[in-house]
């Protein structure tokens, strides 16, 4: 006997894009439940705040990467561009003594500039995104060291700078609930990213280019220019990530940043954005970023060595994509 599942014709649940997101969200909840049961130290306010804070930087980087990946590209340089932006903020604020807001804007623009270069190399010089952004990864890593003189730049004379990420506007309102601003900056950035993606021309062209680049070109869209813009937006998110990072550490650490791009891409992919382009959501990316940090945090609390945390993260990334492939096969 075969069991037949009755389903409303034309409305197959498996075809809806929400499923991957639901699966990712269910996965996140499951992790929370498992870790809460496994250790009493997991579900505490301090630890949850720790997880939120740990997600902030990767979340922002992953938001930028989401744009690029939806447009069927890839950006390997988000981690080191983040560092470069942090160093530039340090230069502006510490070395040049400019006001902090200018330092923030400068950091974000520095990131945007790196992204723009990526975008132009890819669209005008036709260098594959993997190579172009690999080049940018090395270049920004080197530039960060050169500009900083291979030393961290400390924001010791400007204590307000640290408050950007680590202060808690919420804690000031509700004593005890000291969720750092960095977390809200990330959620704010997510809302902005979500609006760009669903409501603006840039977002529309991300999906169009990722879905069928040639058709988009033949429709009269200036694909080269929009591609450059997409990478620039990604760079600006990386720049914002750099500012948060610098504020959190109260310093620009020029040697940091390598490996962050992989966490960002992993978050995007776990969140259901297809590397082949054309689909993806901001909500998925944020859930993906949380899965990665909950995993790291939970395993650490269970005293799993860091090396093994990496193995588990790797397995989760592959499983998430495999689950997506299974779903599509239905």
């Amino acid at each position, binding site marked *: 006997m*075969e*069991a037949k599942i009755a389903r409303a014709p*034309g409305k*197959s649940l498996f*075809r809806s894009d929400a499923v991957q997101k639901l699966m990712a969200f269910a996965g996140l909840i499951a992790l929370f439940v498992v870790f809460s049961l496994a250790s009493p130290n997991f579900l505490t306010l301090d630890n949850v705040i720790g997880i939120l804070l740990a997600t902030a930087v990767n979340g922002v980087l992953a938001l930028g990467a989401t744009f690029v990946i939806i447009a069927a590209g890839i950006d390997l340089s988000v981690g080191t561009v983040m560092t470069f932006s942090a160093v530039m903020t340090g230069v502006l604020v510490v070395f040049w003594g400019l006001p902090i807001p200018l330092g923030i804007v400068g950091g974000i623009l520095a990131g945007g500039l790196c992204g723009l270069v990526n975008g132009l190399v890819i669209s005008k010089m036709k260098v594959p995104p993997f190579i172009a952004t690999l080049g940018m990864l090395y270049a920004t890593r080197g530039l960060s060291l050169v500009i900083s003189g291979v030393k961290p730049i400390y924001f010791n004379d400007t204590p307000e700078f640290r408050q950007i990420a680590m202060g808690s506007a919420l804690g000031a309102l509700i004593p005890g609930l000291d969720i750092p601003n960095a977390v809200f900056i990330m959620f704010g950035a997510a809302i902005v990213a979500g609006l760009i993606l669903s409501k603006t021309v840039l977002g529309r062209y991300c999906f169009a280019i990722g879905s069928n680049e040639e058709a988009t*070109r*033949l429709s*009269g869209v200036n694909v080269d220019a929009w591609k450059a813009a997409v990478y620039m937006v990604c760079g600006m998110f990386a720049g914002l990530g750099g500012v948060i990072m610098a504020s959190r550490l109260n310093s620009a650490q020029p040697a940091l940043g390598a490996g962050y791009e992989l966490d960002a891409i992993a978050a995007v992919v776990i969140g259901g954005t297809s590397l082949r382009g054309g689909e993806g959501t901001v909500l998925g990316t944020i859930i993906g970023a949380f899965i990665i940090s909950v995993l790291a945090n939970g395993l650490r609390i269970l005293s799993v060595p860091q090396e093994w945390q990496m193995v588990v993260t790797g397995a989760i990334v592959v499983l998430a994509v495999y689950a997506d492939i299974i779903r599509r096969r239905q």
Partner: protein
Amino acid sequence: MDDILVLMEGVEKSFPGVHALSDCRFELRAGEVHALVGENGAGKSTLMKVLAGVYAKDAGRILYKGREVDIPNPRVAQHLGISMIHQELNLMPHLTVAQNIFIGREPRRRVGFVLDEDEINARTRQLLDMLHLQQLDPRTKVADLTVAKQQMVEIAKALSFNAEVLIMDEPTAALTEAEIDDLFRIIRQLREKGVGVVHISHRLEELKQISDRVTVMRDGRYIDTVRTQDVSIDRIISMMVGRTIYETAPEVPDNADREVVLEVKNLNRGTVIRDVSFQLRKGEILGFAGLMGAGRTEVARAVFGADPIDSGEVYVRGRRVHIRSPLDAVRHGIGYLSEDRKRYGLTLGMDVENNIALAAFNKFLGALGWVNRPAIRQTASRLVDTLAIKTPSLQQQVKNLSGGNQQKVVIGKWLTADTDILIFDEPTRGIDVGAKSEIYHLLNELARQGKSIIMISSELPEILRMSHRIIVMCEGRITGELTSAEATQEKIMTYATQRSSVMNADLTLQVPAEPAQPRSL
């Protein structure tokens, strides 16, 4: 004088190694349907792509409404009112109908960058209503539509530019008859509005129905423009090929009692292959006819082990076999020649001899796994002779050969691998006329030698000319079988459009796949 919308004169275009257009002319009037015909490679699409701004011309001039214009990109063409629907549909499958139609010129809200989705949907609704496509929802994702509906979306998109010139490159290739009628209704509607429609097609009967004038091209040159009602189809064909073609009936060997070399029973795969059973005899050429998407290629790939199946049995020479991969198929002597030989049939950057040896390298291995080049060379040179492959040397890279010779290299590859059941998927696609008849000759010769051949083809004359027996498919099912004596184009088309239900194609597609039956393999 009628309104002449477009006049192209002395148009030249070269691609590396190919002189695609030489001294071409074309004239289009307002309110006419102008058919553009010619064989594959005659330059029809290239000429129209010049007009649509996809390619830049090397020389010549284009007059649009009497004024000389320069059309450097599709955007300029669209602004002038020239829209082209390309042969391969150019839609973004992840976007909705409305988003596709207004891509590149989305209505925005007052705040600069923000899209006005309601406006996009409303305007699309109007446009679709104008085309009497009330059942199409602007918010449907294009990936969820049938090919025919996607085509309608392309037409709606072209019209949304207020196109005065609409170029359609083989719009009917993938459509059923009912869908073609629908398309023609829309084309006539456009003609009445004064739009100039260019219709590129291989189906000459169709041109008789729909077109006012015909322009014939051959080998990148302009041949003539005539009024459709003044010429017969035979006359058009002879202008296309430059000579009169005699349809030769296949020589059907008496093989009713010959050994059955391949038998497929109750093959199923989701909704694309439904309960397919057939037999192939030794020395037989079995034609598989049907419209695009009928499931012929899918059957071939399933038999060859390239795609998994849900259920079904395959027998080779009477023995039940389990083919789970192409490697298994080759071991049982089955070779598959893909319709896209450049992607699936050849390693283009490698030379002739290595391509020939590719499917059977273990035959050319010496001690310790060294490749025995002299042996490869010997086999390759023998095959180059017997198949009459035109190549300057065995070391020539395959990408530098013509389409016909590339196809012969693929055939040589499968012969080297000792396969005697050969599945040819569109064996003459993209091959010029002269080479076509050579390929036909070769297929007949192979059959005579006792090879068994399945030939999938969308060209009815080819099916009729070559097949000893014809199987017709529609929507994943076998809907008919004809002997070569009883087969006619009309009979084949009747079977090819025999749908299992009267449901409209949309619904059929959206019915979820039947639950997988237990694998019996």
